[in-house]
């Protein structure tokens, strides 16, 4: 058997190989570190309650170019000669709610007061309005667009409440909540349903609990 002599050359070669092995382990760890991407964060929510500013208008097919906005009462009518609808709107982005589009509704309850009916009482269906309108200018001929399916219905005299959390939540996030179009969907001739309006002190209102 040949004797193995440790020369300076062999010693240097051994140290070099050992060093490169260590370096190899290190680079493997570096690759592992780079491949493990991680980003964490948190977001706190604040809670509050408010009643969004309200406005409404009646639009009348018999007076198609006349504005009937923010009156003490508004009437939904089903007539031979021409229907009338009532638009009710809320603006959660305006004061006092002033909610940004990143906010949301935790709960929302709409209250409507029907002060009188003539004939019927007919069923009133509330269709979600899908395009802008202004209580100060809207008329039958400039009525906004509205959805095909009502969010809720009601009939008869008295105070009614409706859970409208999902529509309010979606409206807050879109930055444009247009409210509802109230339409007589029973169709009794000359039936009317009158609701308390903006100028009555008992206008439609929403109790909104929000997060932002």
């Amino acid at each position, binding site marked *: 058997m040949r004797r193995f002599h440790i020369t300076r050359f062999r010693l240097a070669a051994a140290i070099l190989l050992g060093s490169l092995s260590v370096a190899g382990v290190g680079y493997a*760890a570096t690759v592992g570190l780079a491949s493990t*991407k*991680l980003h*964490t964060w948190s977001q*706190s*929510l604040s809670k509050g309650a408010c009643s969004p500013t309200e406005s409404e208008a009646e639009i009348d097919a018999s007076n198609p170019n006349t504005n009937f906005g923010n009156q003490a009462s508004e009437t939904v009518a089903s007539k031979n000669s021409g229907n009338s609808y009532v638009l009710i709107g809320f603006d959660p982005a305006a004061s006092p709610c002033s909610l940004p589009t990143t*906010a*949301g509704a935790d709960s929302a309850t709409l209250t409507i007061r029907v002060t009188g009916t003539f004939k019927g009482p007919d069923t009133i269906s509330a269709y979600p309005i899908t395009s802008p309108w202004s209580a100060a200018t809207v008329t039958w001929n400039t009525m906004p667009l509205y959805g095909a399916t009502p969010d809720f219905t009601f009939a008869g005299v008295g105070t009614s409440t409706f859970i409208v959390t999902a529509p309010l*939540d979606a409206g807050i996030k879109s930055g444009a909540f247009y409210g509802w179009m109230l339409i007589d969907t029973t169709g009794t001739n000359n039936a009317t349903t009158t609701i308390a309006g903006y100028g009555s002190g008992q206008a439609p209102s929403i109790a909104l609990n929000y*997060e932002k």
Partner: protein
Amino acid sequence: MKRLINIFGAVLTAALLSAGVAAAASLGLSTKQLGAGNLTVAGCTASALTATRNVNNSGNVTQVNVLNVPQACAGETLAVTLENNSHASLTSSSTIVGACTGGCTVSVTGFSTVSATTVTAYALSLTG
């Protein structure tokens, strides 16, 4: 022979320096494991992205939307935990970030039934 040993000496020095860098990287890896909370390690974004949530008409959370997620996060896992005011977990879910143009909104669904009124914070993470 002496010249050859000098050459090996130079190579050895370079190798040891490389090993030094590797050792620093190894230490960094250990530091990551020790880190907690909001430490960002080579993430696809360094920003605290804004999240919103949708509810149904019963007021229960149906999904969480994380806004303006960078394209660089495509393929990573976005996890969301809904927390109460004690920062206890109410429910959690996750999704894979898809490819999109520009900053995109990523929606996470699949939460158990939780009333939005009880949610006071979101804990979020992006991992890849």
